[in-house]
Every structure is written in structure tokens, then in C-alpha cells.
């Protein structure tokens, strides 16, 4: 335990150094928001792993890490500036308060120039100019133009498109004029984005905005239980979206949407209303980059459309592929986002217990081997040496900057670019060992194919079943809704959501069970057959059996027609559901414990295949 703590400390200080943090600042900055955001410390769902973390929505991240910093600077040091201006300074200095202060006191005119700020002079940003020809779109007439204090005027429609496009880069948005450095403040960005295009009536636009807002917040808050499952269809079409968490994550996480129906208080509403800055796409993108580039401490929830961020309070040593395989399950840093999607902080992938991380990673790679997409990725992309994001080189120099973590490296040797200043060509060396190794791996893969298929089919079966369970639940939910709507008119004596809360719990239990089963097949695939692996397999059977019983029970509910008797039936089934769910969870825990102790004692041994 003690050396664990040490490594945590040392790595943390390393990170601060890298980011120019003083530990003092981080402590004051990264403390939980005072706005009551759901960011209290949690402990890992992996009972074997001692880990604390916080989880909160993306917008809280912006408030805490960006806006709060600017407000701090304003109230403590630089009261002459607006929060908006301070945001630009912070953004320019990579959100480091101390750096802003030091540059400010060092040479303010130079710093101001670099940030692109200028004196606030009551400049009218939007105005209508007679007979104006916009240099960008070449439209002319009496146009509404936008300009900063520099008076470089462009029609507001072009400015809006420009801001929308540039905001995606996550850098400070500057005046369109090529050599003008003036920054477009975030509030200006927001007013440009919310601007009414000429010729569109106000009501029309408001409706659109409303729709858009609904769209955006779709995944965030569905207080209305009515809308939730009705939008099931639309969320399913989203599944085609490419997710970096290829194999199973998308299915799995979609499924959990049901829990929102019954337990949803995100506290996002008030955030959206309070601070218009939070609508700035540039700030949103800056937040994305900020989270991505501090990936040792922060992670997105990998669930589809889930806007939550998890921040580790305990340091997790990312297992290096060069290091010895870490098989202890106590080292699997499972966290749950505030929407209770469980995932592994190490792999940024769904909860893969009882498989250790290296195994899960191997398995995922293996499963994707067959897909053309992966073939393509392997042929055309390379992982960023720092954050492993896949990068396709689309032309341009070999000096590559990772979009995600901003790491600069050489495309040819994958070493840091900083070492390439004067000797960029020396990395062109041929390493025959690497080539041999990959060839060997390929032939081994062929040998184990049939064995692999056996386990994969079982793995995939549960994955598909999970989607099936989800559909079943959707049908039941719809029945319930109809029934409740109907009874609320006719009688007082209807069931309340509280009465069927257990269904949601059962469903979560069912998913958790299936998920663990899936990964136990991956686990078994890499296991050396011996007496202990047989024991493991029989525990697998137990869990499998219970899971199927629970699934069947759910299936039975689906077949019921909504009627007065439904309530009675639901009440009768309740006990059975609760009992089976508890059993699933218990057997799941036993399976994981069995795997864990087997690994720790050395009874379960992994095959040395690739």
C-alpha cells in the first residue's frame, strides 16, 4: 500500500509540473463546485479496488475549471477585467491562473497583445451598414455587420459561420482579418451563435432554438418519464455513430437509459440558465481538449452521448503494455459516472470484470480483428504515443500534433517532436525485430481461431440478449405508461412509479450480470484449463442460470396486457424479482471473487498466447 501511495504522489507532482500547476492551486481549483452539483466523492464499484473519484456533468467542469477561475482572478487580483476577458487570458495560458498573473505583472502590454484583448471602449459590435459588401461571402446591400474594436467588418452571417467553424479547434477565436490578432470574447460568440439570421421571424427562430435545446439536452435530463422511452427509437438510430468503444459499449450503455426515468436529477437546468457563457461552443471545445489532455486524471464517460466527466482523486497507474501483465483484479479501476454508467478508468471501456485490463484490451482487439473497420484502422492509422487515440495522417508534415491530447510527435519514429528540432531524419531506421514479431502474432491468431469462436459466440450472445432485454423493458414500460394514464382518469387507485422501482433495479442487476458473464467468457478464453478453471466455469454456469431466469421473468411481464389485473400481477411478481436480482448480484460477486482469489493464489493461470 505504501509504495502505491508513493507512486501516486510522485506521478501527481510530475503532472503538475508538466502543466505548471502548483499543488496549492490545484487543491483550491479542483475542489467540488459550490453549486450543489452532484460531485461528491465516490468509491469504486469494484469492491476490490480502493479508489475515490468524483463525477459531474461537463457543464460543471466548465464552471469549476474555467469560469470559477476567471471569477477568482477577478475578485482577488484583477477587478478591472470582465470574466470574459479573463477567460481569454486563462485560455491563452492553458487555464493556469498563476501563469496569467505572472504574465500580467511581467509585461501587460505584451500579454494583452498576445491574448488579443483591448480596452473596452463601448464599441458597437453589431450594426447595419448601408451598401456593404462582405469580403467573405461577397453579398452586398444594407447588411448587418459584426466587428470587434479593430473595426474589421464582415457580415454577421459570415462571422457566425466563421465562429462556429473555428470554435471546433478549441483555440481562442480571433478576428477574421488574417493579420488581426483580436480575440472574439465568449459572450460575443454566444451572441453571434444566437443571432437571428436576417429574414427569419422571431417566433420561428425561438421554436428552432427550443428544438435545438431539447436536442442538446436530450441525453441529459429526461425528467418526463413520458418522453423517455418514446425516444427509444431515436436513441437506437444513434447507435450507428462510430464509437471508439467499438465492441460492446454502445449497446450496453444505451440500455441503461431506463434508469433515468425513475431517478433523474442532473441539476443541469439551472446551469444552463444561469450563465450564458456555458453556451459558447468554443468554451465547450476548450473543455473537451482540457479533459482529453489531462487524461491521467480526467475521463469522459464512454457511454453514448453521456455528458459526464470523472475526475480521479486517487491516482491510477496506467498499465503500460511494456509492463508485466497486471492481473490482480484489485487493480482494475472501475468508476461510475453520475449517471451510473460503470466503466474502467484504465481502459476507458465498460466494466470488464472479472477480466483484468490487459485481458479486456486483448479481447477487444481480438474481437475487432474480423471487422473491416479495424483492418482499415490498422492499415491507415497509428495510435498517438501519448494518449493512444487513433490518428490518420491526411497529408501534411510528419510533425503531428494529436488533436486530442495536443502531444507533438514525429509520424515516422513516434518520438516526441521536441527531439527532432535539428535531426528529424535520423529516425528512419529499419527494425527487423518488430516486423518478425507481427508476423508471428498473425500465425498464432489463426491457430486459436476455432477456440476463440467458441467463446466469442457466448460473449456475443449475452450482448445481443442485453439489447433484447432492453426492448422487453421498453414494451413493459410503454404498457405501464398507458395503464397509468388510463387509471389516473378513472380511479385514484393506480400504481405509482415507486411501486415498480424494483423493475429498474432488477433490470440493472440483469445487465450487470450479463456484462460480467460476457467478460467471464473473455476471461475463460485466456485461461489455462485445470481444476480451478473448471470451478470457475461452474460458477459461470450458476450465474448464467440465474440471469436467464431473471430475463425470462421480465419476458413474462411483457406478454401481459395492460389491465387492472396488471397491478396485482406486478405486486405478486415483485418478491420473485427482488429475490432473483439479489441472487444474480450475489453470484456475480462470487464469480469475480473466485477469479480474483484464483489469480492472486496462482490457481488460475493465463495462457501465454497472443
Amino acid at each position, binding site marked *: 500500500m505504501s509504495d502505491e501511495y508513493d507512486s501516486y504522489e510522485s506521478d501527481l507532482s510530475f503532472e503538475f509540473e508538466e502543466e505548471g500547476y502548483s499543488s496549492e492551486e490545484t487543491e483550491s481549483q479542483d475542489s467540488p463546485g459550490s453549486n450543489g452539483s452532484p460531485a461528491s466523492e465516490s468509491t469504486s464499484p469494484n469492491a476490490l479496488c480502493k479508489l475515490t473519484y468524483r463525477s459531474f456533468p461537463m457543464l460543471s467542469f466548465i464552471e469549476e475549471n474555467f469560469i470559477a477561475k476567471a471569477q477568482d482572478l477577478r475578485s482577488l487580483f484583477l477587478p478591472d477585467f470582465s470574466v470574459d476577458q479573463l477567460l481569454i487570458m486563462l485560455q491563452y495560458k492553458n487555464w493556469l491562473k498563476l501563469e496569467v498573473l505572472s504574465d500580467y505583472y511581467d509585461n501587460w502590454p505584451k500579454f494583452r497583445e498576445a491574448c488579443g484583448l483591448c480596452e473596452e471602449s463601448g464599441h458597437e459590435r453589431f450594426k447595419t451598414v448601408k451598401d456593404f459588401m462582405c*469580403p*467573405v*461571402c*461577397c*453579398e452586398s446591400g444594407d447588411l448587418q455587420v459584426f466587428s470587434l474594436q479593430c473595426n474589421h467588418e*464582415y457580415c454577421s452571417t*459570415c462571422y457566425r*459561420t*466563421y465562429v462556429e*467553424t473555428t470554435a471546433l*479547434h478549441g483555440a481562442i477565436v480571433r478576428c*477574421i*482579418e*488574417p493579420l488581426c490578432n483580436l480575440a472574439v470574447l465568449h459572450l460575443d460568440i454566444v451572441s453571434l451563435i444566437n443571432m437571428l439570421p436576417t429574414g427569419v421571424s422571431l417566433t420561428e427562430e425561438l421554436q428552432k432554438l427550443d428544438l435545438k435545446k431539447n436536442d442538446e439536452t436530450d441525453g441529459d435530463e429526461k425528467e418526463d418519464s413520458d418522453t423517455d422511452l418514446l425516444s427509444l427509437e431515436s436513441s437506437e438510430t444513434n447507435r450507428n455513430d462510430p464509437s471508439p468503444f467499438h465492441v460492446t459499449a454502445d449497446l450496453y450503455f444505451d440500455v441503461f437509459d431506463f434508469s433515468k426515468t425513475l431517478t433523474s436529477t442532473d441539476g443541469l437546468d439551472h446551469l444552463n440558465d444561469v450563465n450564458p457563457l456555458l453556451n459558447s461552443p468554443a468554451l465547450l471545445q476548450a473543455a473537451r481538449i482540457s479533459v482529453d489532455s489531462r487524461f491521467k486524471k480526467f475521463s469522459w464517460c464512454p457511454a453514448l452521448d453521456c455528458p459526464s466527466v470523472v475526475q480521479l482523486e486517487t491516482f491510477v497507474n496506467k498499465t503500460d503494455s511494456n509492463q508485466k501483465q497486471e492481473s490482480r483484479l484489485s487493480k482494475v479501476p472501475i468508476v461510475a459516472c453520475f449517471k451510473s454508467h460503470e466503466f474502467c478508468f484504465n481502459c476507458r471501456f465498460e466494466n470488464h470484470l472479472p477480466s483484468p485490463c490487459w485481458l479486456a484490451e486483448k479481447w477487444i482487439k481480438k474481437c475487432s480483428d474480423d471487422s473491416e473497420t479495424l483492418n482499415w484502422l490498422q492499415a491507415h492509422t497509428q495510435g498517438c504515443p501519448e494518449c493512444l487515440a487513433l490518428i490518420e495522417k491526411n*497529408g*501534411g*508534415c*510528419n*510533425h503531428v500534433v494529436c488533436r486530442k491530447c495536443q502531444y507533438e510527435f514525429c509520424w*515516422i519514429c513516434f518520438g516526441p517532436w521536441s527531439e527532432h528540432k535539428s535531426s*528529424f*531524419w535520423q529516425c*528512419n531506421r529499419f527494425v527487423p525485430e518488430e516486423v518478425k514479431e507481427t508476423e508471428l502474432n498473425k500465425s498464432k491468431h489463426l491457430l486459436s481461431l476455432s477456440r476463440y469462436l467458441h467463446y466469442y459466440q457466448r460473449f456475443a450472445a449475452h450482448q445481443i440478449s442485453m439489447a433484447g432485454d432492453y426492448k422487453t423493458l421498453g414494451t413493459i414500460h410503454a404498457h405501464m405508461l398507458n395503464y397509468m394514464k388510463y387509471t389516473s382518469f378513472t380511479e385514484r387507485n393506480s400504481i405509482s412509479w415507486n411501486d415498480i422501482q424494483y423493475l429498474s433495479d432488477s433490470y440493472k442487476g440483469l445487465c450487470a450480470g450479463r456484462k460480467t458473464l460476457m467478460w467471464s467468457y473473455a476471461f475463460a478464453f485466456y485461461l489455462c484449463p485445470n481444476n480451478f478453471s473448471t470451478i470457475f466455469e461452474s460458477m459461470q454456469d450458476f450465474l448464467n442460470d440465474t440471469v436467464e431466469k431473471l430475463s425470462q421473468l421480465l419476458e413474462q411481464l411483457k406478454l401481459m396486457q395492460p389491465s387492472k389485473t396488471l397491478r396485482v400481477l406486478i405486486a405478486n411478481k415483485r418478491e420473485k424479482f427482488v429475490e432473483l436480482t439479489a441472487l444474480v448480484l450475489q453470484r456475480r460477486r462470487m464469480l469475480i471473487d473466485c477469479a480474483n482469489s484464483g489469480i492472486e493464489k496462482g490457481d488460475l493461470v493465463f495462457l501465454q498466447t497472443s
Partner: protein
Amino acid sequence: MAALPKRIIKETQRLVSDPVPGITATPSEENLRYFQVTIDGPSSSPYAKGRFDLELFLPDDYPMCAPKVRFLTKIYHPNIDKLGRICLDVLKDNWSPALQIRTILLSIQALLGAPNPDDPLANDVAVDWKSDEAKAIATAKEWTEKYAVPSTDSS
């Protein structure tokens, strides 16, 4: 295809009516977003007397994103690779919608006059350039002679 934006029409008109010295840009008849471009090598550079063919394409979101430009004529230059791709800041991060086709082509012409082997695209060329600049310039002249001087190019 959607109607051509006014901006492209205006730029095209101006390119034809008021051409930049040493640069021609002619839109293709089938696709008005596709231009055949020639750039004359700057007189003080190893590319002098050469006339280089390029292609230029205006993507759908032009002018919000930069035009795509590529050399068609072989050229020995540290910032242009053998596929003709160009490493130039204004074609990437430093693009601004206020820039135009003509300004971009002028930048490319300027790049011919001032190769930058410290930020190379064609590594092998950059190596030569840094180790023996005189020889590299000689090769560049030779290539220009061979591929870009109009009389031999006409074949």
C-alpha cells in the same frame, strides 16, 4: 450541385480579368470549383524559368475552410512531397476566410522562393537541403529544367 456562391463567382471573375503576374488560374468547365493553376518559379530561385502546374479545389465549405491545392508538376522542394502536397500554414491552421485563391497562390509562389527545410514535408529532400544546400539547389534546378520548363513539358 448547389448553386455557386457569389464569393466564388467574384473571385473567378477577378482572377480572369485581373490576373496575378506569373500565376494563372482557370476554372474547369465541368466543375467551377476545380481550377487548373500554373505558377512561374520566382526568378531569384532555383525554380526560375519553370512553369509549374497545380490543381486547386474549393471544398463545399469554402471560404470557411482553405482550398485544397496540389502540385501536378514534379518539383524538388523540402515542403512539397512527391505527391505534390504542400506544407504551408495558410493552407492549414492559419487559414482565414478573408484570404483568397489569389493570396494562397501568391503564398505558394513565395514558398518556392523561400524553402523551409526545418519544417519539412519531403524528408529526403530536406536532408539533402540541410546537408548540402548547393547540391540541393542544383538538383532543384535540374528538376525544374527537366519537368517544368515549358518546351520539354509540352510532350
